[in-house]
């Protein structure tokens, strides 16, 4: 069986600085993979490479077995098939919530205004944000903003979702409402690649956890193994620090 998403020997450097190397990673259909690792280990870079927002220097990335990093692939078409949510500043501040959500469906997928708005309302209703449709993003709490960002990505009906520490800029009491949205998506069978600092959440939601250290995947496996019986000293160190910080 071919994986939904596959990275083969991917390498990335900014100027001379190597940020990712020899990344081999597969995400199966309906699988949830969490990327963990300290700050600067390359999690965000990896996700942006998958979304083709930054070009890779080595290796190749495949979606449904077809290479998306080659010359012939059309980045805009590839991006239409996946959604990504960043840490912050996702929403367009000059557009109301509704327009944020309908922009992609209308201008990329060619839906009519009515169709797009109908689809947006269904999603807003599901995530309990219907009363915010006419608000501008700066009127929303951080948690609500991130939920709208997830909805906006979902509105294009992606086959794969990428999340880049979407709760790390939030006040602690807002984290749960956003993580619950991802839990909901898992229950629906969404394929997801998630960079996160929330170890409890990773343990709970991930089918597989990848520990990234200095651009290398040092270790990966089911959360139980990684969190209770890490093989690599670096992984143990990292988890130790997380425990000390009270985040596990």
């Amino acid at each position, binding site marked *: 069986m071919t994986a939904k998403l596959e990275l083969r020997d991917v390498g990335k450097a900014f100027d001379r600085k190597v940020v990712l190397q020899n990344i081999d990673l597969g995400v199966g259909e309906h699988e949830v993979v969490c990327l963990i690792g300290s700050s600067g280990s390359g999690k965000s870079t990896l996700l*942006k490479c998958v979304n083709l*927002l930054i070009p890779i220097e080595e290796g190749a990335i495949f979606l449904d077995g077809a290479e998306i990093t080659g010359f012939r692939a059309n980045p*805009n078409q590839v*991006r*239409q098939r996946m959604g990504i949510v*960043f840490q912050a*500043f996702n929403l367009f501040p000059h557009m109301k919530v509704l327009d944020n959500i309908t*922009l992609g469906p209308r201008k990329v997928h060619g839906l009519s205004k009515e169709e797009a708005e109908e689809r947006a309302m269904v999603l807003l209703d599901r995530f309990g944000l219907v009363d915010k449709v006419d608000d501008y993003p*700066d009127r929303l709490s951080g948690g609500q903003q991130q939920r709208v960002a997830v909805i906006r*990505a979902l509105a294009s009906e992606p086959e794969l979702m990428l999340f880049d520490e979407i709760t790390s800029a939030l006040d602690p009491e807002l984290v749960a409402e956003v993580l619950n949205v991802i839990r909901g998506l898992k229950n629906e069978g969404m394929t997801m690649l998630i960079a996160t600092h929330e170890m409890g959440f990773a343990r709970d939601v991930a089918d597989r956890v990848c520990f990234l250290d200095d651009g290398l995947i040092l270790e990966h496996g089911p959360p139980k193994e990684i969190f209770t019986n890490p093989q690599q000293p670096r992984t143990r160190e990292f988890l130790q620090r997380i425990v000390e910080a009270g985040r596990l």
Partner: protein
Amino acid sequence: MTAPANTGRGPGLFSPGPRTRIREEGARGALIAFVSTLIFLALALWLILTAEAWPDVQRQFFSGSHFRAAWPDVVGGFWLDVRMFIVAEVLILIIALAVAMVRALRGPAFFPLRVLAVIYIDIVRGVPTILLILLLGFGIPSLQLSGVPTSELFWGIAALVISYSAYTAEVYRAGIESVHESQRMSARSLGLTQVKALRYVIVPQAIRNVIPALLNGFVSLQKDVALVFVLGIREGVREAEIYTARTFNFTSYVVAAVLFLLVSVPLARFTDWYTDRDRRRKQAMSA
């Protein structure tokens, strides 16, 4: 129309945002500002009116009868200035935005377009506007090419548009660069093409950020349209010059100046007011 009206505009023109200052200092500050302005005006008036040369100055520059005599022609010419300004400004805002968007496109495929935009901006900004007006306004009609307009007015406005679009494109570009990179990434991640990302996400935010700078450009162009007088176009300054040549009196120039001020001062005040409000709103939002 005598000296008081003229110098009376002084404080409004030269003290930026007097209203803000008054608000900050409260009622006492307002009183001080009012009294010191009165004293300043009285002093300036006294100096001017008691100067030995004042009667001559008044006759040459501020003569009531010449003012009335010159008024109709100069106003007629000035109306052309206003229309030129409006037409040119609309074209400038559109063309400059297109140039700035071309400059903002990334990737090797757009390299030639980007280079063209940079060459255009560099060359045009390096040539004095007046030279461009002479070059196009006299030069192109002299070629008598078929199908190409021969009107000096057409080429005069074209020169202004070409010149100002280069500056204005740089204003837009600053605005585009001021929009956070994550906005571009978010837009592209939805599958929007570069052009659509610019059009729907980046440019609307960019324009908001540079409205004060664009308004400053309005004020500047509003005066510079008069440069086409070198082509013999009978706009306000040209009409004033004709009157002066006929009468050897300079009051007609003052008429023209007053007319330009009637437009540019409110524009400048509006720009200041808008910039002030904009800044305060941003501060309130980041607080």
